[in-house]
């Protein structure tokens, strides 16, 4: 301990001890509560960047187009879309872009599905409004020679985001589970948002889905990580606005 200024170090450790006692929101002792709040933070960034890319300011609803009033309500966990639910979602319209595009909805914690028709959770999901409308009106979709879809079809999903708020780097087990889930979903874009560096997990995700599928160290005090996430969202909405599909009729 020869080079340590113990007095100063102890003062620092003392400050940490005191500060820990002053920072306590009871629900944040629960990891999944932190994770849910992280999803809503991600939603907030996504909506801002949608507008920056050219979307109209978002409108918030619940159930079947009832305007959301305070406080907004989000899911802890996931559930299917239904007319009866009271969870807040955002609607994005694109009336001021060169060629108006189909409106989108942004939901937190919903089930969608791929060709297996088995439900898969999407933490922050951007999908075509017409697809969400369908599953609010009907409990399933039957097509000839196809299995029954009980959840929105991932082919009509513009972005499915997996948010991981952890106190450590993501393990190979966790990221393999995410990759398996994303592989099942033929969504236009997949993205994992994580608060830690998780370099190994990032390499795995990028290897499978490309560099756009990974955003690490995204949190408010890290301007680089947060900006990278914002840029990713902005690019996704730019692509949506400029693609040759999804034109409003």
């Amino acid at each position, binding site marked *: 301990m020869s080079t340590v200024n113990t007095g100063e170090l102890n003062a620092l450790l003392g400050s940490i001890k005191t500060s820990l006692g002053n920072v306590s929101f009871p629900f944040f002792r629960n990891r999944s509560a932190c994770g849910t709040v992280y999803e809503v933070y991600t939603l907030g960034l996504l909506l*801002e960047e949608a507008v920056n890319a050219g979307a109209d300011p978002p409108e918030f609803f619940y159930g079947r187009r009832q305007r959301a009033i305070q*406080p907004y309500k989000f899911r802890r*966990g996931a559930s299917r879309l239904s007319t009866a639910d009271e969870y807040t979602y955002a609607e994005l319209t694109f009336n001021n872009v060169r060629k108006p595009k189909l409106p989108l909805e942004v939901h937190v914690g919903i089930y969608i599905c791929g060709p297996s028709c088995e439900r898969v959770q999407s933490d922050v999901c951007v999908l075509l409004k017409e697809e969400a409308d369908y599953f609010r009106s009907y409990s399933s979709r039957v097509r000839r020679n196809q299995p029954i879809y009980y959840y929105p079809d991932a082919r009509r999903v513009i972005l499915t985001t997996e948010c991981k708020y952890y106190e450590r780097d993501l393990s190979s087990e966790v990221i393999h589970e995410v990759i398996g889930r994303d592989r099942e979903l033929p969504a236009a874009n997949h993205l994992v948002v994580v608060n830690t560096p998780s370099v190994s997990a990032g390499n795995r995700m990028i290897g499978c889905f490309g560099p756009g599928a990974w955003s690490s160290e995204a949190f408010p005090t890290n301007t680089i990580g947060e900006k990278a996430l914002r840029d990713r969202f902005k690019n996704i909405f730019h692509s949506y606005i400029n693609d040759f599909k999804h034109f409003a009729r």
Partner: protein
Amino acid sequence: MISDEECNYIFDELAHILHTQQRDDLVKVVQEQIERLDAVPADKWNEVEEHFRPQALLSSPKQEKFGMFQSPLPTFGYQLAEFTEKEPSSVEEIDRGVLSQYIYPAHERLMLLIRAIEAAYPMPIIIGSASLKLLDQSEIRFESVSRMEESFTLSQREIQMQEQNAYQLHQILEQLRQYIQRGEKIA
């Protein structure tokens, strides 16, 4: 950078503080990452291979002989294989404790613990506050879809009371990081 001894001292002090806060789980989370080695990137594994493999081979006296003969006889090679049977020839054979120590030296472990503290204490409040601002809400309700988790409300009023403390703690942890990195006096 400060010495391993100093890093271990700070780690123990922080672990003790967390114990008094009944947050031993944060130390366990860090230990889990260190012990399981389940988040180590490929370039680090490669570095480990390069670090340990030559050592293991050089430690074998037969290997020295192997080096003397440019083209060893097959029988010699066989003997070598027999002789080095107990020597580690891949990272998988090296004691996990030794690997953990190499991959996560004292300084790295301490950084992981500081990050865990930051993720558990100030950051959820900072993120909660950012969420309220981004959505322009004074309250956000989180409703459990199952009975397994509790519903809760995040309010601007409650968050505001703690936000300043959260930023203060974030800054103190940042100062500690700088101190560890540079080994200099704290400003």
